């Protein structure tokens, strides 16, 4: 079972507010990811990290930013939320041993911007 945790699970905020979605994993994985997924739609990679102080933008352009100061922690920040940011945000990390290409997801953070 994967040990990857996201908070908050559900959040409703007003336009223009700053929000940080937290993600932590206790598996010691170097690689971590943020995906965005609208209801019933496919996953879109928005950010990834190969380790501490490494962050890259994903395939889908996003106004969010990420940081990776500690191996286990990969928060995502929106400086000024807009209704177009309403979506589910999924954090994930990747094993590098044995089944080295499996990726484990958190439960997701549902963000609604009103």
């Amino acid at each position, binding site marked *: 079972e*994967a040990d990857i945790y*996201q908070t908050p699970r559900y959040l409703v905020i007003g336009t223009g507010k700053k929000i940080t979605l937290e993600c932590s994993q206790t598996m010691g994985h170097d690689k971590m990811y943020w995906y965005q997924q609208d209801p*019933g*739609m*496919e*996953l879109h990679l928005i950010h990834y990290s*190969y380790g501490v102080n490494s962050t890259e933008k994903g395939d889908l352009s996003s106004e969010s930013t990420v940081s990776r100061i500690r191996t286990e922690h990969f928060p995502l920040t929106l400086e000024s939320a807009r209704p177009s940011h309403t979506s*589910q945000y*999924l954090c*994930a990390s*990747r094993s*590098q041993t044995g*089944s*080295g*290409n*499996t*990726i*484990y*997801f*958190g*439960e*997701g953070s*549902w963000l609604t911007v009103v």
Partner: protein
Amino acid sequence: QKEVEQDPGPLSVPEGAIVSLNCTYSNSAFQYFMWYRQYSRKGPELLMYTYSSGNKEDGRFTAQVDKSSKYISLFIRDSQPSDSATYLCAMSAKYSSASKIIFGSGTRLSIRP
């Protein structure tokens, strides 16, 4: 053309039926294949992981890879209403720091009691 194609469904079958979910892909370098199950408003959960060709069985689930046809399948035997979810396939090339994991768009499955 997407690297991984997956029929979005929805697929509706009666309880107890055998379900077949499929993905096709175009990149012959893919060697690692995964199936995820995603319940509504939850994150995807890893179901099966296979390397290269062949079959892998885990309880009621069987994952099958046919690399010559670039086709993978997930079979669910004795399907239950609790199997109702979206199933995503995922795959990647031989492990390297640059290899990406590519996801299918998911198939919505509904098991009717």
